[in-house]
């Protein structure tokens, strides 16, 4: 299990990397952390003609807060560094809670947020999280750059709406607001394995405890990360109680179409999605109430 031959080019600058991608298009892949891409190359499921290594582009790494409510995370920011940045736990509690579930420590030492998102594995945690947080993703090419809403970024299993000459360069996520709570939960067969199903949710309440906004994202519940809009909307305008949580769980079970696998049937995945949604919503609501 070795990769098929390819041409390796270490990018000297972002402009260099983008010019190469413009030249080679779909024949080329960017190499970020390589923790998803290289395994598929080792299996020869992916056989790019050209590999553009963007690891030298350190300006694409790091997280900055800009303004009161946005965190800008460079695409080459490694999960290891997000885990160790106190801003993650403070401003991105949903991300902080999910990080230990993302593969293993050695993978997080190398894996990047941009690579993880651009790989667009529907079973992966971070795509569901950026969808739940209504994140914005910045794509850049030699033609310029554009922002893509997270929900518009994922086109299907391992497919994004990035053009053949574009690179995902930055992720913008909103910082947690007052009176809000987040919760991430998943069920996996072993620590670090892909989730059989995972749920990422955020809840924001007003001074009287009524739900102002609820957003729920799911991983491994379809061919791309799912934003459960109906379930989220059903919670708004009232305090979140058991009846509302049960209703949201049922809405989600009806809305999703999980793929099923040898490890979990469709029915079991649907069951898990309902159970995890209810638990995660209850926990997120409790956390939001602590901020009252």
């Amino acid at each position, binding site marked *: 299990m070795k990769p098929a*031959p390819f041409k390796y080019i270490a990018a000297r600058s972002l402009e260099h990397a983008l010019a190469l991608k413009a030249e080679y298009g779909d024949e080329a892949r960017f190499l970020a952390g390589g923790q998803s891409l290289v*395994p598929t190359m080792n299996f020869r499921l992916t056989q790019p003609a050209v590999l553009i290594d963007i690891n030298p582009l350190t300006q694409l790494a790091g997280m900055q807060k800009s303004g009161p409510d946005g965190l800008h995370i460079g695409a080459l920011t490694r999960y290891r560094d997000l885990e160790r940045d106190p801003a993650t736990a403070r401003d991105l509690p949903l991300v902080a809670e999910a990080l230990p579930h993302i593969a293993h420590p*050695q993978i997080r030492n190398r894996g990047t947020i941009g690579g993880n998102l651009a790989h667009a594995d529907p079973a992966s945690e971070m795509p569901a999280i950026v969808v739940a947080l209504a994140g914005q993703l910045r794509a850049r090419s030699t033609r310029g750059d554009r922002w893509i809403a997270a929900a518009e970024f994922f086109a299907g299993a391992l497919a994004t709406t990035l053009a053949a000459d574009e690179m995902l360069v930055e992720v913008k996520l909103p910082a947690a607001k007052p009176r809000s709570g987040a919760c991430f939960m998943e069920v996996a067969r072993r620590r670090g394995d892909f989730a059989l199903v995972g749920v990422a949710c955020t809840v924001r309440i007003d001074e009287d405890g009524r739900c102002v906004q609820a957003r729920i994202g799911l991983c491994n519940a379809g061919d791309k990360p799912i934003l459960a809009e109906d379930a989220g909307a059903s919670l708004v305008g009232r305090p979140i109680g058991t009846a509302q949580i049960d209703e949201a769980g049922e809405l989600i079970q009806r809305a999703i179409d999980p793929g099923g696998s040898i490890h979990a049937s469709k029915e079991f995945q649907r069951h898990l999605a309902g159970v995890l949604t209810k638990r995660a919503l209850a926990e997120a609501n409790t956390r939001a109430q602590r901020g009252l």
Partner: protein
Amino acid sequence: MASDTHDVTVTVNGTQHRRQVESRMLLSDFLRHDLLLAGTHVGCEHGVCGACTVIFDGVAVRSCLMLAAQTDGHAITTVEGLAADRDHLHPLQEAMRDCHGLQCGYCTPGILMTMKCFLDEAPAPDEVQIREALSGNLCRCTGYQHIVDAMMLAAERLRS
């Protein structure tokens, strides 16, 4: 496709090596076949088992998920570089021996390199933290308990 090669200068266990490598050469194969450092073991070759873990610029990584061509100008430590010299074991290795932390030994180099980085960062871990740190290394012999015991002992010895 004609083979695509690159010149790399890489420091491994304190020794600088200059080699020409093919683009598709994995770091794990480079260490084993080019540098003849066969202590780095190859298990699954897709980043699941942890047997090939080495320390790259101070952090534990899967060498089967990196390319030799990516190592130019970087520093790597393999299990051969863990002990100070050939006549002594590193405290981590000693603790593994004392606690029966290995049977067949196939996973051991990867576990040692993972835990070296972990204990550097967390010198006084509890058992839960050790198990979390070990979660990316598969061992089919020991049931892990003796490895956890060894790491608790190694941490204690390294602190004193």
